[in-house]
């Protein structure tokens, strides 16, 4: 078989594509056509029925749903990470990658064990204020850990470090495992939220459009200049 791609194939494909975009004979009309394509591709896919959980037990999934609402709650501007499909997103990736699945299996089990120790209830069954107290503790421990790590970095680079073998850096506190898990559930929940149409709306993101002309609104320019040191 020849590696040569027949010209007709390329031509036809290119033609079909440009027709699809409406960009062959340019002009205002074609910008509208292109805009239509943008909207089409941007439209959220239809959801058929109820989501079927693939990687987690019902209990685990309920906890992930609770966490989604706690991490990104609904407010007057937009819905929550649960509305934006964060649990489905986490479940989908966990079903494709055992490494992610295990981070969540282990992390959720740790969370329930810690909750039982503190409040004699699993995370999902605990009172809302107990859940937030737990998450507050994890955030606080996370900050402390980050500070220590940066101290450790600076210290390891210093010449004293090499000579002072008795020094050991405390790598983690008692919540270390929980901190690592919370970082995972938070980053994936936040990603799922902000990449959704609900998240786009929350941030008021208005790009990804086909425009005939690019203009910058005077209103925005004036707003910023007035508040700048150059006013």
């Amino acid at each position, binding site marked *: 078989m020849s590696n040569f791609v027949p010209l007709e194939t390329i031509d036809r494909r290119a033609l079909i594509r440009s027709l699809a975009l409406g960009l062959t004979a340019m002009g205002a009309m074609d910008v509208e056509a292109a805009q239509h394509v943008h909207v089409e591709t941007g439209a959220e896919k239809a959801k058929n029925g109820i989501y079927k959980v693939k990687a987690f037990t019902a209990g685990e999934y309920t906890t992930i749903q609770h966490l989604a609402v706690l991490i990104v709650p609904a*407010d007057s501007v937009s819905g929550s990470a649960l509305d934006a499909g964060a649990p489905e*997103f986490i479940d989908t990736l966990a079903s494709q990658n055992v490494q992610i699945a295990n981070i969540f299996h282990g992390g959720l089990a740790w969370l329930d064990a810690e909750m039982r120790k503190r409040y004699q209830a699993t995370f999902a069954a605990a009172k809302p204020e107990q859940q937030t107290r737990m998450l507050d503790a994890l955030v606080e421990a996370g900050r402390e850990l980050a500070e220590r790590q940066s101290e450790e970095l600076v210290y390891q680079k210093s010449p004293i470090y090499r000579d002072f073998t008795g020094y050991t850096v405390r790598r983690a506190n008692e919540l270390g495992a929980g901190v690592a898990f919370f970082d995972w559930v938070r980053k994936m929940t936040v990603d799922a939220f902000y990449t959704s149409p609900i998240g*786009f709306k929350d*941030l008021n993101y208005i*790009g990804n459009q086909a425009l005939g002309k690019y203009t910058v609104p005077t209103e925005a320019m004036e707003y*910023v200049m007035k508040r700048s040191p*150059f006013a």
Partner: protein
Amino acid sequence: MAQNAISQEIFDAVVVGSGAGGGTAVHVLTAKGLKVALLEAGPMLDVGTEFKEHKVPTDYDHRGAEEGGKAYFGKGKPFGFFSTTSGGWELEGEPYTVGEGSQFQWFRSRILGGRTNHYGRMSFRFAEYDFKPYDKDGLGFNWPISYQDISPYYDKAEEFIGVAGTIENVPSCPDGKFHAAPPPKVHEALVKKACDKLGVICIANRRAVITKNLNGRAACHYCGQCGRGCQSASAYSSAQVQVFPAMKTGRLKVFDLAMVREVLTDENGKATGVLYVDKQTRTEKIIKAKVVILAASACESTRILLNSKSKEFPNGLGNGSGLLGRYLMDTVGFGLSGTVPALEGMPHYNTDGYGGAHLFMPWWLWDKHNKLDFPRGYHIEIGGGYSMPGVGSYHSAARRHGYGANMKTKIREGYGNTIAFAGRGEMIPNIHSYCELDPNVVDRWGIPVLKFHFKWTDYEWKQARHMEKTFAEIITAMGGKVAGLSASQRESQGISIPGTIIHEVGGARMGKSAKDSVLNGYCQTHEMKNLFVMDGASFASNPDKNPTLTINALAWRACDYLAEEMKKGNV
């Protein structure tokens, strides 16, 4: 490896590589009526499937984190899932090695069009002084050509690929043939005010994007997604703008998945074609041609020449000077960002524009080097605006603000308030930065691989510190707060890792004589009249201007020369 029968067809020219240099070569040569073969180590480009322009994260279940969340483990595509890049710093089965004590990352693109599919499309002409750097400060090497030699070809390249910009008369960054440039965005206008105050020149950016229709390509529709590939070819890519049209002439034959091993020569000291591995069948094949043009990227072309060993050329082709692989350069990179309170609460608008920043800062101290502690200049690129939210966009903000209603509000308020600066500076070629063949390693095609050695010197480190100081001054002048580097970060991240700016050039540099260079001013090897190198390998220096436009112009000039020489019977 099995060897197939040699193709009987003899082409006028065989071009290896389909990026900026190869794309220009096939365009110019087929237009002159030559019969050309083009070899690409990757597959054909299918714009419809490869370009993710206009897509949003929810078009994919993984939202851009890639199958199994690869991006979370640092194993995603180099510039994110939506980028059109096909390739990266690590390619399965195609390794390279790095010498002890060196750091170097080699980006390879393996698809028709190469890196022009994803590149930033910054298109700056070299200045007059850039061609004679040694005359200016006694460092590095002069080019054998001058600005006057290449200027008409900058004109041709700009007129053909299309570059938007404005006429400014800045000596460090000569004007060109420009399409109209889009207006500055709000944060850029603010940057310009700060630059005016500090005496830094800030002008319209120059990018290879058309703002009026050109040769059947539609004007930019300002979706801001050039890095994902442009379906309407409003942003230049060699595949869409040069290779596909050249195929339509009927004089170009494209061989994809063709990994070239070496240039073949005869006893008369002439190149006769190339030997390549057909990746699909894992067989060796030969293409015969009257002229061989390497445009496989600076280091890949160098590798092919080093691997083209014979009794007559025991150290590889064009290597009589021993300089093949030497004086490899990348661009000096450094970045700093800050948050700017004046932007808080701005009425949102569409900041996509024509895909990159609408303003930039060319080197403004070209005549003040005697007052600086580093010899060469840099330009500054601006980042900012309301970009499309993606996987990873808010990880650090989330860590900073905990969780819950407070975090959500803080992320919303902080959206679009950050302005980032990236410096792109000129490196002085040095003897510690080069590539050679690794005697112990071959790739999966059996081809010996490159081993890299690289060192930044004080010239580059001091330039990066000047970038840091300048960016901090600009951020402060805007009333912003610098997201500062700690002492340890400055040590580890104070300058880009060599290779990561993907401006690696040199290796087969051009010069006046065969004693001190590989190529002459027409990208022709001194030692073999029908062998040319039309990519960044030819660069004698690496000015702060991004290399692509100059590769386009040099290739065009070389092809004009080559066609004339063929007519005269000299090649």
